[in-house]
Every structure is written in C-alpha cells, then in structure tokens.
C-alpha cells in the first residue's frame, strides 16, 4: 500500500534558521497525529505538504505525489487537490451562506458548479449542518464554524485531510462530536487524516499513529500503542493515613517515586524482585493504608514531554 508520507532527509531553512532538520520518516495511510511544541516545525511541514513552500533539501512524497516545486505550479495544484485543508483560523467568508461557502470551496478545488453545489448539500447534511445551510456563516456557533470548515475541506472528497487544531475553541460536547467525525472519516470512509494539534488527548482519542517533532527534528514516530508502552513496574498508589511516613519507608527499601501527583496518591517504580504485595507490607508497617493500586502506563503526555525535552523517543 502506498505510504501516506514518505520523507527522506527533508530540510527547510529560513535564512540562518533551520526549521526542519533532515526529517526522514515513512508513515502508512490512516489517522496520524502531528505533535510538537510551538516552533517545532509543524507549520513548516504542513506548508511543504500542501506545496506552499519548497523544501531546501531532501525529497518527499504524499500518497506518491512528489512534494516540492514552486508554490504556484501545476504539480502543486495536483498535490493540493489530494488534500482537504481545515485551517486553524476562522477562514469563513462573511456574508456567504453555509451552502454557498462550501460550494465555493468546491469550485475553488475545480469542481463544476452544479456538482459543487450538490456535493455541498451532501457534505453539510453529513456534518449535521443541513438545517443551518441557508444561514450566513458568521452567525454560526463555534462548533458549527468548525464543522463548516471541515465541510469545505471535504467537499471534493480528498484522499487526505489536513486538520489544523480541529477542536480549537470547542466545548466538551462539540469536541467529542468533532473527534467522532474525524474517527469515522478515517475508519469508515478510508480517509487519511493528519491532525496537527497541541491537545494530546485529541490525538490519543482518534489517531492510530503519532509523529512528534521538536526543534525541527523527528523525536518520535509510531503507533500510539507502541509509543505509550505498558509498564509492569509502575503503579499509582492511593494512600490513606500517614503518607509521609509511607514515602520515607518506600525510599528506605529502594523503591523509586516519580512526580508527585495528588495529595493522597504516589507514583512508584518497583525495582526487579519487588511486587505490589511489598507495598501493602510496608504500608502496614508504618501505619498507612493503601486504598488502591492502579497501573501507571506511559501516557502520550509523558511521552511528549520526554521526547520534546530530551531527544528521540
């Protein structure tokens, strides 16, 4: 199967600043989360993927279409027809009705006028905006605006969707709705989706794979399950009674503790040879009581912090 992204030593410099430093990665089709702190090079990568800027060196392909070239060339227009882009900015055209906005997007992608209009009706119905289609887009709520932006990206039925902060500004129910839509488009309708976001929970909720970049370098790539490995030696321990004595007793027997979390909770790493039974024994010995022992796998959040702070994940 053609990979979604195939980058080979892709770099981009702006004067003396190196925004991307030799990115090499191969990502299969599916739902991909693009993660990175501010200034990591995410936007530069998105611009290269859309054919808006050229890489300074290296090569790349998106669904087997080569990246690069000047931004207003036939090749780049071909590339952009493959992609439906949902920008982070409002990107609505005040004064136009929802149906006109989406149909205009279809025509901008090159669809014939009547087909663009018919398709706009279909997409708005699918995104649950059918009743608001004759309302001016500027009167939409935040959730409706996000869905209208998704509709304009979907109108020409692209193979790839590039979503820039798709849940930005949404309330919890709007966010769930949007994430469900993204999941459904990826899993049921075979769209490859690249979600660029700061919200790790969103990525964890919908993406199969994650690409982490920081400082223009690739810091991690793989499936969410691979990266967020199960840890059989780490536990969250909810403690009742004298917590400080319990902590001292754990330290005394060589059990390591990481990052304090809540007032009544400890995160512990058991050394080889120790089991969770030892925790109960130690607690009983120092007058504390254990109310729960929970698994403490590596979260995407933790992985992201580690990867962006130190190096490769």
């Amino acid at each position, binding site marked *: 199967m053609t990979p979604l992204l195939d980058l080979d030593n892709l770099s981009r410099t702006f004067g003396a600043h190196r925004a991307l430093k030799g990115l090499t990665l191969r990502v299969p089709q599916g739902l991909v989360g693009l993660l990175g702190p501010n200034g990591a090079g995410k936007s530069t990568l998105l611009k290269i993927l859309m054919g808006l800027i050229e890489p300074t060196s290296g090569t790349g392909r998106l669904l087997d279409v080569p990246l690069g070239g000047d931004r207003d060339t036939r090749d780049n227009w071909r590339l*952009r027809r493959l992609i439906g882009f949902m920008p982070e900015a409002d990107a609505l055209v005040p004064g136009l009705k929802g149906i006109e906005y989406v149909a205009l997007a279809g*025509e901008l992608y090159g669809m014939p006028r009547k087909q663009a209009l018919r398709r706009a009706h279909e997409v708005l119905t699918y995104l649950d905006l059918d009743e608001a289609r004759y309302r001016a887009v500027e009167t939409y709520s935040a959730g409706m605006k996000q869905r209208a932006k998704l509709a304009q990206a979907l109108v020409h039925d692209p193979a790839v969707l590039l979503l820039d902060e798709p849940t930005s500004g949404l309330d919890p129910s709007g966010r769930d709705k949007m994430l469900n839509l993204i999941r459904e488009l990826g899993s049921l309708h075979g769209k490859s989706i690249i979600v660029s976001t700061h919200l790790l929970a969103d990525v964890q909720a919908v993406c199969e794979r994650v690409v982490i970049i920081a400082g223009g370098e690739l810091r991690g790539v793989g499936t969410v399950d691979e990266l967020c490995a199960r840890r059989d030696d780490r536990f969250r321990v909810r403690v009742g009674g004298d917590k400080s004595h319990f902590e001292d007793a754990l330290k005394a027997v060589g059990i390591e503790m990481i990052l304090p979390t809540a007032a009544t909770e400890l995160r512990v790493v058991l050394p080889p040879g120790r089991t969770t039974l030892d925790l109960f024994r130690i607690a009983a010995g120092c007058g504390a009581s254990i109310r729960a022992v929970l698994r403490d796998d590596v979260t995407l959040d933790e992985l992201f912090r580690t990867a962006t702070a130190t190096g490769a994940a």
Partner: protein
Amino acid sequence: MTNPTDPLLRYRPWKGELNPPVYASLAMARSSLRLLFRRKVFWALYALALMIFFFFFYAQYLVVWIQQQAASQTVSVGAVPVRLSELTKFLDKLNLNGSPHTFGNFIWFEGHIVMIVLAFAGAVLVGNDFHHGSLPFYLSKPIGRRHYVLGKLLGIGAFINLMTTIPALALFLQAGLLYEWKSYYVDNFPVLLGILAYGLLLTVVLSLLMVATSVWVRRTVPLIMIWSGVFILGRTVANFLVEVQNFSPLWRLVDLWNDLYLIGLWFLQADFGSNNLGSNPEPWQAAIVVTVLCLACLLYLRKRIQAVEIVS
C-alpha cells in the same frame, strides 16, 4: 428497519473531472457579485444609478423628438411664449445627441455611484479576507495567488461594467434608433469601440485601485476616507491650483477621475475643443498617470499577497 433516507445522511464519495484554476476565479467573481447585491443598503445607490440611466435615456429621446418634430413650435410658460427647442437648452451641456460626449458624460455621472458603492464595498469584498482570516480559505486551494487577485478583479470589474458600460451600450443602441439607424451605427462604430474601451479602462483602474486600497486598510471607514481623498480632495486641490492659483493645467492630473474621463473621451474620439475641455492636460499625460498608478497597485498587491501565511 432501515430508514430510506439513511443513505442520504451518510458520507458519499465523489468522483469527477476537475476544472483548471481559472474557473476558480470565475467562481470568486460570482461570489463577489453576490456579496455586493446582497447588501440592502447599496440598493439605494443602485436605484440612483438607474435613475441617471433613465434620465439620459428619456432626455435623449425628448431632445431628438423636439429637434425633429416640434422645434419650431411654441408653448406658453406662464403667459410667455417659448419655443420648444429653448425648453431643453439646459440639457445642452450633456450633449444628448448620440455624440461621443453623450456617452462620456453618462459614464462620468454613473461613475460617481460606482465609486461610492466601491468605497463602501471594499471591506466586504476584499478587506474581510484579510481582517477575518478568509484568505487561507482561498489560498489553500489548488489555485495560484494570481487567480485570487484575478477573481476579485473580475467580480469588481463585472460590477463596474454593469453600472457603466452596459447602460452606455443601451444608450448607444437607443441613439441609433432615434436617427437613421444604419448610417448612425456605421458612422459611429468607433464610438461603440470607445465605449467598450472606456469601460475596460474603468474596470482595470478602479478594480485594481479598490483591491489594493482594501488590502491596505481593510475596514470600511478608512476606505471611504481614502476614496474621498483620491476622488474628491484630488479634484478640489486640482481646481484650486489651476483655477485660483493659475498653476499649469498639468496640476489637473492629480484629479484621477478627470484623468479617466480624459482618456475615456480620447477613446470615444470626442472633440476636445468643445465641452469646456480647454484647460486640461493631454490625454496621453493622463494615461501616464493612470498607468503608473496601476503599476503601483499591482506591485503592492504582489508584495502583500505573497506575504500571506496560510498555515500560521
């Protein structure tokens, strides 16, 4: 049981041939016109433009009718007998005789309405794309930046032509029917070309100027101030310098609307000796000013639109 409308609610794939990017410019032009005609407040101005057209249309008919059928007759105004031909003297300044000046004057008057609408509509058509971040919506599509500018220019150009060139062509058609139509149309064929050229000139200059100023200031009030400065202050300053201070007529070149009018009359092959056009610069001098202005607008647009960040 499955609801028969279920398939309509599901996502459906689409397959079809895609048009080249120039079709996107046409779509943008259509949506610009839609935005212009959707604003109810502009309809008062459109009505005024229509009134000017009807005034020229019926006045031209009246003048010809009086000249040809009732010029020697007299009517009583109060108790004073007045020749019918004298009654329409006040229309002489407008040259309502199917001559090049008829169409030049008509476009001159209609142009004022166009300018007012464009001053108000700049923010709606172009400024909002920058102000409300709509530009990434356009430029993330498979079109070049030149297609975006072309789309906006086409929309504004179509509006300008609807307000000036097309009614002027209707007046030309009417003028022919009022005289010996065959010989009128044959003899005045250059006038027809002149009307089209004048319309094209207004389209190019005003649409470029409007897009450039809208990209620059984006909001309605500053836009109105700039357009007032260009078209009203420019004329006031030119009149003051030439007529009060007796400076060279070349100073009239600062009046852009007058420059366009002079070039328009040149296209229409009008007689510059008539219609009090004596103290004006030559049309070629006006053409230089207008060309420089257009080039400046193009360079500015190129610079500003190249700098737009689609992914921020």
